[in-house]
């Protein structure tokens, strides 16, 4: 049971990092990225391919961050020519296209089977110690990402992001390069999501396309919306709550005597209902974004 809770917390912190990244895009910058799994997947496949090529994990991480940067440059460029939700649907289509390519490509990406045998961190240690160490590492990564996020939001760069989120023309008239600031935040948050993907692949010792489906995107979005879109701390809270809902739905499935297939469907329905409920009744989330008071 203790191991189960540790596992839940590790997964919650992994997805909290992705959610903090998504919040920097969707919440802080008004970039509704419906393909956030793209960055996560780039990380996971970075780890998988490094394993396959017998390279150290650091190479996988570095490669993943580089590819994520390239993806961010493309999405940033598109943000200049596509208005908000149009850009959102483009990100969804691009992420889905990449998933389908990975799914169908056997020789390099492992196709539907994915890539197994990704090295476990701290594999030589006993299970419980291993999980605790994983959790500590992941919490440290989360803390760094959270600190970066909080710090950035309050700087002039953050003001540029938040002003262009609501009033792009005003931001441009005050000297803020719209495509530049958007691309910059996509690179930063994309790197966060990619790092989370690298760690995730190592943690579950596997890289595959099943985590790149729309269900993952909607799960991360639910974390952001439930926690409070625009509020980094809220988003972490949302990640913890939704991951708990996700992990414990297994017991509900067992109690109702459902097949694994149906349990998975039930789980997605539960998350869909949570998202739906918050959208209709409290769309600013549990910890809403607040106006920033400046002391100086």
């Amino acid at each position, binding site marked *: 049971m203790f191991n189960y809770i540790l596992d839940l917390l590790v997964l919650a912190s992994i997805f909290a990092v992705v959610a903090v990244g998504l919040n920097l895009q969707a919440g802080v910058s008004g970039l509704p990225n419906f393909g956030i799994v793209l960055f996560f997947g780039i990380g996971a496949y970075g780890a998988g391919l490094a394993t396959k090529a017998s390279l150290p994990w650091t190479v996988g991480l570095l490669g993943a961050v580089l590819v994520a940067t390239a993806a961010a440059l493309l999405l940033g460029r598109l943000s200049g020519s596509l208005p908000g939700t149009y850009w959102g649907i483009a990100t969804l289509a691009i992420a889905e296209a990449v998933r389908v390519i990975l799914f169908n490509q056997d020789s390099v990406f492992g196709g539907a089977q994915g890539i197994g045998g990704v090295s476990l961190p701290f594999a030589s240690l006993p299970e419980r110690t291993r999980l605790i160490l994983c959790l500590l590492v992941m919490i440290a990564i989360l803390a760094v990402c959270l600190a*970066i996020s909080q*710090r*950035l939001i309050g*700087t*002039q*760069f*953050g*003001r*540029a992001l*938040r*002003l262009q*989120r*609501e*009033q792009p*023309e*005003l*931001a*441009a*008239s*005050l*000297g*803020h*390069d*719209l495509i*530049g600031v958007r691309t*910059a*935040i996509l690179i*930063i948050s994309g790197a966060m999501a990619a790092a989370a993907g690298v760690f995730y692949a190592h943690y579950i010792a596997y890289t595959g396309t099943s985590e790149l489906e729309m269900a993952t995107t909607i799960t991360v979005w639910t974390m952001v919306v439930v926690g409070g879109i*625009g509020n980094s701390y809220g988003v972490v809270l949302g990640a913890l709550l939704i991951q708990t809902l996700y992990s414990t739905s297994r017991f509900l499935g067992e109690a109702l005597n459902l097949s694994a297939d149906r349990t998975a469907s039930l789980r997605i329905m539960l998350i869909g209902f949570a998202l739906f409920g918050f959208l209709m009744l409290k769309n600013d989330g549990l910890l809403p*974004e607040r*106006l*920033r*008071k*400046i002391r*100086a």
Partner: protein
Amino acid sequence: MLEVESVGKDYAGVVAVAEVSFGVEPAESVGVVGPNGSGKTTLLNIISGFARPDRGRIVLGGREVTGRPAWTLSGLGVARTFQLPQMPARMSVLEVVLAGARQPVSASPLGGLVRLRRSRAELAGAVERADGLLERVGLRRLRDDPAASLSGGQQKLLNLVAALIGDPRLLLLDEPTAGVSPPLRKVLVGVLEEVRAKGTAIVTVEHDMAFVSEVCERVVVLDGGSVIARCAPSELHLDEQVVEAYLGKRRADRGTRSEVG
């Protein structure tokens, strides 16, 4: 300082600006007047980088800047205000003003993360200046309110303050008085006087003739996208073409404005 050379623009085959040329010197204040649809706002958009001209050149301080994006021009010292500025709901009044300040270190993501002391110093300086400017236009006590909660007139003054905190060399104003109450209008005239005294050139697109006479030395009259007259504000009523094209329609404009406002 600013040279507008034979600039023209069409929208979907309709001529918005036919061919307009004029220049502005430092510390000079020029009014651009004309009936609705004469191309005034399009011209302002072209000069400030929000629209790309189909013909002609824009030269700023001896350097051609035609077709540069708005943010580049802002970096070169061009600031503008909007006719009906929309302010963000999730930022405070003070933050909107700060967004207009020049804070090179903390405007770059890496600088803001790493060079903590420098960016803190930048912020402190900007806050002091912002408070001074907000005080001047009577918005200081609202500095921590959501910017979108201000009245229309207050939002226009906020837009002006955010444009001024970056110390522009050229200030472009799009109907600065529309929707602004008489006491605030007086403040506006005073602020523009101070800005000019510091050497900033001002181009004002305006309907309110009294305001134009108060703050502008020269006016350029547009009709149908072309310049039909250039004169001092006091000579406007002497020009027959202007009276015909513009003053006749102005009364109608006033009528609709009072209905709206």
